């Protein structure tokens, strides 16, 4: 592999790489992230390769295996470039038609293409498909253009250009200033201005300084970071080198949760490649700046996503958070100034430097700039990752992109921000998605989890699910969180089982307040959010569970009842009675 000793080497290499691809007329892109592989993308890839070989079309048709492009509902899928013809839910047998008709002849295979459900009109091209039409994919689009195993692909599409610009045309302060002007805010959830955080770390006394990429994505149903790391790891690495340059750090860590084996593999390989090219290590691109990265694997604890717990874990200790202040910028890893940012934040940095802060600041709302990736899941037709500019409404995401809730159902609520977030009722679908608006409405942006709930969802059961999750995942260090989450989970369990009374509801509310106020870290302080937000908007459901022993959504098994029978607990209790009668 090339060792780049000068920024000119990088540009020469890029030019060579671009020339190489001129002959290829069309490329079939197989999206094989974790979601794609789970639904058989690798078999599709093999079938396509066999077909191309059989036709001897290897010189005219390219085959590119990439990460996830976001439309997980339709996996396994392929996109034929440059036209952007999209085929979803494929079987290996479809390969022949795709290669022969689309890749070689440029024609759309109608039976494989998407159709608008209402009209039946065929929409083959990405930009026509409603799921993609409303999105603004500045981060995710590269996932379709890059084979994560090859640094060449990233360099071909302009990768590490921002790094050259940062290292050779800008000062460290200049990089921070550019990020400040872009208005980038932390994508991990809190939305703290990134440039301010970087500035604090830069100014902090102490040496060495460290930077960390927080890829311990633990919210149930959220996988934005996984897709970025799997599909385009070099974007994150480039962002981190720039950040390290801005803050004066020479060592960085990418902390990936151990349950993401493909991300671990791809990031590890990408670091190796960058290092052997001279993009990591001493004298990057011949400059005086040196920086290296280490990949750390998490060991399966949700709380490791909390920054102080994550640092404890990197140091080799049990992932217990500690009291802040001091914040990591002052005293982080091994007591040294440390900056920690989320995957998506780092991935945004090269974009800002490459295309300019003015371009970036033109996207989004006044206070929230740029795009945000959400993982749209739950009771919605098109699930997947969606990248939208800040400030779009929930309605646009759910109805236009997600295709709305399934037929015959009504939207009940949207849960954002994972276990730390809250539920927004159906009435608030016209809210604009930005940090402040969501916070005002009683939820949070979070890292981007978005779960759509329809009338078949019981809100008490939902809260019970989250509290059970938090009870299991609380680290157990501080008393309010350790005991409080367990007690709240028990109380919610009693409510869904029909054994709770009015006093329990009062107890739940007061517990929620105590845990929120007294807990040590973010996990505990937000642990009550699923309860508090559902109580605000859906109190009647709690009351139905307690007073009438009835679950309005018909979810809680032990309270299920038929319409012609007065509410009476069946389920486990009824079964027990039945057994007793028989014996």
């Amino acid at each position, binding site marked *: 592999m090339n060792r780049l000793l000068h920024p000119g080497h990088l540009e020469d290499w890029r030019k060579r790489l671009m020339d190489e691809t001129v002959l290829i007329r069309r490329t079939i892109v197989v999206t094989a992230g974790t979601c794609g592989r789970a639904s058989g993308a690798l078999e599709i890839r093999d079938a396509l390769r066999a077909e191309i070989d059989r036709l001897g079309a290897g010189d005219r048709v390219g085959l590119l295996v990439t990460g996830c492009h976001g439309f997980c509902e339709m996996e396994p899928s392929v996109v034929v470039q440059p036209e952007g013809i999209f085929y979803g839910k494929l079987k290996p047998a479809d390969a022949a038609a795709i290669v022969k008709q689309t890749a070689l002849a440029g024609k759309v295979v109608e039976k494989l293409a998407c159709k608008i459900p209402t009209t039946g009109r065929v929409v083959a091209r990405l930009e026509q498909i409603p799921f993609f039409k409303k999105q603004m994919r500045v981060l995710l689009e590269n996932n379709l253009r890059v084979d994560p195993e090859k640094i060449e692909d990233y360099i071909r599409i302009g990768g590490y250009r921002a790094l050259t610009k940062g290292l050779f045309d800008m000062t460290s302060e200049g990089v921070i200033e550019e990020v400040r002007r872009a208005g980038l805010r932390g994508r991990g959830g809190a939305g703290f201005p990134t440039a301010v955080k970087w500035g604090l770390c830069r100014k902090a006394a102490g040496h060495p300084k460290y930077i960390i990429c927080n890829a311990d994505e633990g919210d149930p149903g959220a996988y934005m970071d996984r897709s970025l790391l799997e599909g385009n790891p070099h974007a994150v690495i480039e962002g981190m080198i720039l950040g390290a340059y801005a803050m004066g750090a020479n060592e960085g860590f990418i902390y990936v949760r151990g349950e993401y084996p493909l991300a671990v593999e791809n990031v590890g390989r990408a670091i190796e490649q960058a290092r052997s090219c001279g993009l990591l290590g001493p004298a990057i691109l011949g400059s005086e700046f040196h920086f290296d990265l280490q990949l750390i694997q998490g060991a399966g*604890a949700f*709380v490791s996503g909390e920054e102080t717990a994550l640092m404890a874990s990197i140091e080799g200790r*049990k992932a*217990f958070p*500690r*009291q802040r*202040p*001091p914040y990591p910028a002052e005293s982080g890893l091994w007591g040294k100034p440390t900056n920690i940012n989320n995957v998506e934040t780092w991935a945004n940095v090269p974009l800002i430097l490459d295309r300019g802060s003015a371009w970036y600041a033109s996207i989004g709302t006044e206070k929230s700039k740029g795009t945000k990736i959400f993982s749209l899941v739950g009771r919605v037709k098109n699930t997947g990752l969606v990248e939208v500019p800040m400030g779009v409404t929930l309605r646009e995401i759910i109805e236009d992109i997600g295709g709305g809730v399934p037929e015959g159902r009504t939207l009940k609520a949207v849960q954002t921000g994972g276990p730390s977030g809250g539920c927004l009722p159906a009435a608030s679908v016209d809210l604009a998605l930005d940090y402040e608006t969501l916070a005002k409405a009683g939820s949070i942006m979070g890292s981007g989890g978005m779960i759509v709930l329809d009338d078949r969802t019981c809100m008490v059961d939902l809260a019970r699910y989250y509290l059970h999750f938090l*009870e*299991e*995942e*609380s*680290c*157990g*260090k*501080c*008393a*309010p969180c*350790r*005991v*409080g*989450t*367990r*007690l709240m989970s*028990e109380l919610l369990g009693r409510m869904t089982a029909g054994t709770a009374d009015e006093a329990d509801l009062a*107890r739940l509310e*007061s517990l929620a307040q*105590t845990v929120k*106020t*007294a*807990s*040590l870290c973010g996990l505990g*302080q937000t642990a009550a959010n699923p309860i508090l937000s559902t109580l605000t908007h859906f109190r009647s459901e709690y009351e139905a569970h307690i007073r009438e022993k009835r679950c309005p959504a018909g979810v809680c098994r032990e309270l299920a009842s038929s319409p012609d029978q007065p509410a009476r607990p069946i389920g486990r209790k009824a079964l027990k009675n039945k057994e007793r009668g028989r014996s």
Partner: protein
Amino acid sequence: MRITIDGRVLETSGAPTILDAARRLGISIPTLCEHRRLVPYAACRICLVEIAGRKLPAPACATPVEEGMEVITNSPKIQALRREVLDLILSEHPSACLICLEKENCEEAKSMIRKTGEPTGCILCPADGRCDLQKVVTEVGLKGLSHPMTYRGSGVRRDDPFIDRDDGLCILCGRCVRVCHEIRGADAIAFVARGSRVTVGTSMGKRLLDVGCLFCGACVDVCPTGALTERAVRYASKFEEQRSFICGLCGQGCRLGLRLRGGRPVDVRPEDGSPNDGQACVKGRFVIGDLLGHPKRFVRPMVRRAGVLVETSWEDALAAAGRGLAEHKGKTAVVCSARDSCEDLWALGRLSRDVLHASSVRLAEDSAAYLLGCPDGAEIYAPPMTVDELSQARIFFIFEESLHLTAPIFGVAVNQALLKGAKLVLVGDGEYCLDRYAAVRVKAGPAEAGGFLTSLLRVLINKNNSHDRGRPAGFESLRQVLRTLPPDSPTASVKLDRIVGFLEKRRPAAFIFGPRFVAGPWGHRNAALLWNLAGHTGGLYVPVGWEANARGAVEIMAEINRGAFPRSAELNKPRALILAGPDAAFKRAGEEFVVALDAFHGDAAAQADVVLPRTVFAEQEGMFVNAEGRLQFSSAAVTPAGEARLIRSIAADLARALGAGVPALETRDAAFKDLIGAVPSLAEAIRIVRGNRPALIAGKGFAAKGFVDIPDLDMTFDPAAAFPLRDPDDYLNFPTALEIKSLRTARRR
């Protein structure tokens, strides 16, 4: 800095926490997980306070004060929050008694129903009355409990010696885990599991014996509840008074507190202040109670009649001893113990020299660690060093020593430094407690280590050649000598580069060794090499004496022996023997009369003609010089067992029995005055103690910090004639030592 707490203004410098500041103002904030020796942890959330301008309350223990900060510690909101948090903690802690209506009646009937397998309330808890949680409940003013009770424990765990663990009483404050890591560096216990299942435990749930626990008892001492207790006194922990004394079980001179009820020992707790500052070890913490009242103690004098030792009165025994010794005046040898106080040693020494005209007076233990390069002169003694200095070192060389067993407090200091990033080079051919922390491990016993040290010294001296100005005395001759010494041993030199690299980056160094390393024919050379290394690198030369008064004893013996004895071969064969030091390997060989001053039944005493019961350390007052060189004064914490007498009383009694003019050294003051008058090094140290500094005995001959000659191997050394090197745990044939030894074997497995 200026801050306001509850409307009161405090000017403060430095960066204390809110809790420190509040305490300075006399404002009380309840705490549970906080401990003044440990890093703030902020887990119990009892010390939450309000800070103006912050959304959430902050824990006082972990929040540093900031300029202009306004803190409120007792608003109704905060008080309510504390009650709720405490309510949560108590829902996992057996607390029936806290809210019981019959509480007061129960107090009267308590003694009858206290012992139980698993406590369900305070009344059944071993920590009742000294529990921090009880205090906090009173302080916070919790009246009732609102959550269902959950028992977290599954009975008391008793898989390990000395310590009982009851998870059901644990509030997960983390003090034990933190003290084990931050102070002791043993890292035997940690939090295991997560969420509501988290407990304090060991790796893979093994026994403490198998995970490197040294049973120092620090976890028991910091436990705020009854979760960790000392098994032997689990239900006897209410004491009436606590008396301070100096532990005599090793050379560290720990200040311990003996807790007494009705004049009898209950348990022992380490006390604050130098040298041990609240720490102890398995011996000091758990076995002193056993030792003082052990069934094997001699409580009455014994005399051999018709070949059998029988108990008798003091008058009778002293008369018998007097008769026997009078016969062999001038041909009596005296063996003293470096575990006895300076006054006792002096009194016995004076008796031997001035009354018995003894043929030899010597120590039972090997004191080579404090002597340097002088096979017979004993003229040079190591300089003092303090535990604080030791904990500042950045690289440690430890030779042949399991520091945590032979010098636990030095071990604590080394741990503190290792946690701060110091490096450890461990030299020795055995297995040692600190093995797992060693950056470099050199497998070389005392015989081979000389080669390693020579190579190291040679490399360092040659490296330093060009820019070493103001070379200390002896530098050139040292270099000459190094040239002539045998070449480097190949095994050790492999690691030399790394060690030299450490030494270049890290100063000061500390060279720690015990008697084992400087015993044998190579002993003096090893000591000289180490001294030169310490001198050359500006490091600390740290001999570890295993006995309570090893340093003091060396000085006193030198004074007693100063030219006073005719040393003809004929006289060196003693006819009578006074055995005041422990000697498990003692075999009577030709002595016609043996008097043993002993505390415990053992092999040595069994061969004696007269046994005079003597006191042990906690029963006697006196001055001890510990391994640092620090002069310390111990008081008597308990009355002597049975009819046991102090060594200096016995010395006076024997003098009277011999009809000699008695040197009036029976009282402590008289013995002390006489001693100070005769031994200038002690007098000098005492003069300094009157100032603010600790009294440290000054090493003789080291003032110039020069190099010493490296002596040849002592080929005249006869291992058979040398005193056998005793086990450091072999206290006066102390029986519980067996238990400790078995612990050590278990740990090395």
